[in-house]
């Protein structure tokens, strides 16, 4: 076995517990945004540069309120362009950093997200998705930034994206996002949505010794031998802090291991390949999915974020009717669990994918199932969520439908049937 598959030998023993100063242990009744703010603090985040935007503001507010008590800094920057640039800067100064935004702000940040990926900068970005495109519906939900999170900045790069579905998960997975960012030196996106962000539930913040946080993997060798982009066996280079005498040369140009710009074809391939491979080759260790009753399932519902909460009842109803339906919840959306989908596609008849957009993750499921299973997409325009019945009916439909290999089958929600098939008149 190659050392890459063997895991993180050097990382063992690196894990540490959260700093008690950063953890507000207790049982709370808070919304997802606030839980994410608390999660960031518990993960050891010491810098958030943000710019207010609905519906993500509460997360920044929650962090801003507690930051001064934990030696952390929240700064409201002049715009999202500045927020993301300051976050990359703070990370190079040696602190864990994060920014929080939603649709329009996310679009503004794209250039510097690519810069962060290029510089292999660990940072976390919380996107509380809202209805788009453009200003869209600021106060209501959407899941239409999923592909943007993967492909939004120009050029080849890879990021990690996580999609929590409850306030408790907003806390837990914000910590996980920081840990992944440190381990793989890459931007990690928490692709939440307005519903999860504004959903108020019980959140348990455990004592600090039950929270595992990953410290930055600083270089510990000779100062003169340091190469900022020399990868280890997991393809991830070690980091240092700015101002420590390493004579860093850090640029968004394609660079060699020393960090110096290079323009030739060979280096372009070497560098870009490692940038994508450090995520792609480590994806088995990164991906987290939640699987339920998929073993003998005829239909599998693939869902993430708020859609997976709605799907729970839809799946229950289908089971009550005797349909063998399993659930595959994508906690990690990027990198995509392609092997799992390919494996399931050999045994299931169809995948049912509810998502609050007109088809994003459904295309990935289609790609990874190689025409072996029907793909039933339940699209939703946003500003609301599916009803459990929408998902139940789609499952029923998928169970009856014969196999066809002609691309994605769109199954309309009750609302869409009403609007587009039954002549619903909005202005009468």
């Amino acid at each position, binding site marked *: 076995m190659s050392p890459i598959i063997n895991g993180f030998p050097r990382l063992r023993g690196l894990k540490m517990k959260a700093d008690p100063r950063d953890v507000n242990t207790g049982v709370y009744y808070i919304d997802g945004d606030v839980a994410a703010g608390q999660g960031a603090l518990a993960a050891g985040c010491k810098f958030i540069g943000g710019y207010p935007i609905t519906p993500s503001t509460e997360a920044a507010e929650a962090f801003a309120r507690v930051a001064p008590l934990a030696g952390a800094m929240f700064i409201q920057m002049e715009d999202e362009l500045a927020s993301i640039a300051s976050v990359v800067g703070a990370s190079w100064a040696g*602190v864990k950093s994060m920014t929080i935004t939603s649709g329009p702000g996310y679009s503004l940040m794209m250039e510097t997200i690519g810069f962060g990926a290029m510089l292999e900068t660990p940072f976390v970005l919380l996107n509380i998705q809202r209805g788009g495109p453009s200003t869209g519906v600021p106060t209501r939900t959407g899941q239409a930034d999923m592909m943007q999170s993967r492909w939004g900045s120009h050029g080849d790069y890879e990021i990690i994206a996580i999609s929590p579905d409850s306030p408790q998960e907003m806390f837990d997975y914000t910590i996980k996002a920081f840990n992944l960012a440190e381990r793989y030196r890459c931007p990690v996106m928490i692709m939440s949505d307005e519903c999860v962000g504004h959903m108020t539930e019980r959140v348990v913040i455990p004592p600090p010794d039950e929270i595992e946080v990953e410290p930055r993997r600083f270089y510990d060798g000779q100062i003169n031998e340091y190469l900022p982009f020399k990868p280890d066996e997991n393809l991830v280079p070690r980091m240092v802090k700015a101002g420590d005498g390493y004579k860093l040369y850090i640029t968004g140009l394609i660079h060699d291991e020393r960090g110096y710009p290079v323009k030739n074809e060979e280096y372009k391939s070497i560098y870009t390949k490692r940038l994508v491979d450090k995520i792609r080759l480590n994806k088995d260790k990164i991906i987290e999915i939640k699987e339920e009753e998929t073993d003998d399932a005829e239909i599998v519902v693939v869902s993430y974020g708020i859609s997976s909460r709605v799907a729970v009842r839809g799946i229950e109803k289908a089971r009550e009717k005797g349909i063998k339906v399993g659930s595959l919840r994508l906690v990690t959306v990027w990198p995509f669990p392609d092997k799992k989908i390919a494996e399931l596609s050999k045994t299931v008849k169809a995948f049912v994918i509810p998502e609050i957009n007109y088809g994003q993750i459904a295309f990935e499921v289609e790609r990874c199932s190689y025409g072996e299973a029907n793909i039933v997409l339940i699209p939703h325009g946003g500003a609301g969520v599916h009803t459990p019945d929408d998902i139940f009916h789609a499952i029923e439909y998928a169970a009856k439908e014969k196999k066809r290999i002609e691309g994605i089958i769109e199954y309309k929600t009750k609302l869409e049937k009403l609007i587009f098939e039954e002549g619903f008149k909005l202005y009468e």
Partner: protein
Amino acid sequence: MNPVITAFDKGIEKSGIEPSRVCVASDIPFEPEVVNYLGIDFFHTTRGRSIAFGTGLKLGNPALKVVPFVGDLMTIGGNHFVHAGRRNMGLLVICVNNFVYRKIGGQPTPSVSITFSPYSTFEEPFNIPHLANSCGAAYTARWTALHTDELTNSIAEALGKQGFSVIEILSPGPNYYKGIKEIESNVINFYYENSVIKNGEDPRNVGINPEEKIVVGKFTDKKRPTFIDSYNTQLTKVLGDKFIPYGGKSG
């Protein structure tokens, strides 16, 4: 560029600051990469974001001396300049103004008053020291690249400041001055001979006008609480002992 880098090097030496504590953030297309040879950390950021990136570096580690070392920063990223001034963020902006976007083909910049575009420039240029001062900068100065001693002193002085400092340096971008006889014949000395030193001049009066001599000098030097000072003062007032002051006194 060379005299500017030399002045920067000597300025650091004169200020007594350890070069390894100085971090230069530049952006595209202006790249003073040679500072790396001075033992300084060099960050080449996205277009126009050197001040925003520098703000993050500074707040991440307030002990650093962060220098956004940039070309004309009044278009892309101009907003960051305005707000860094307002906050009195502890950055030293070295703005090397050569009136053209040299690396991308000689297009006019927003602080140009003489011009190299086919039909000349007719837009009103920025007066950088005045803009910096009105935004709240603690220190403003302008020199040409050939005022080496004055420039060195200014850099050393500004590195010792805690707040937002701006030094504009007029430096030639000779490739694109062709066709303008007065400059073309003697590029190196053009600015130097056409400038007049007026220390303490009101920045409102230092706009660059091709009809008149260019005013250079150290214009303003104010004492204002920096961002980190204000942050610590305000939060100590509100939170008292519970507050953990940020970054010590180096803000």
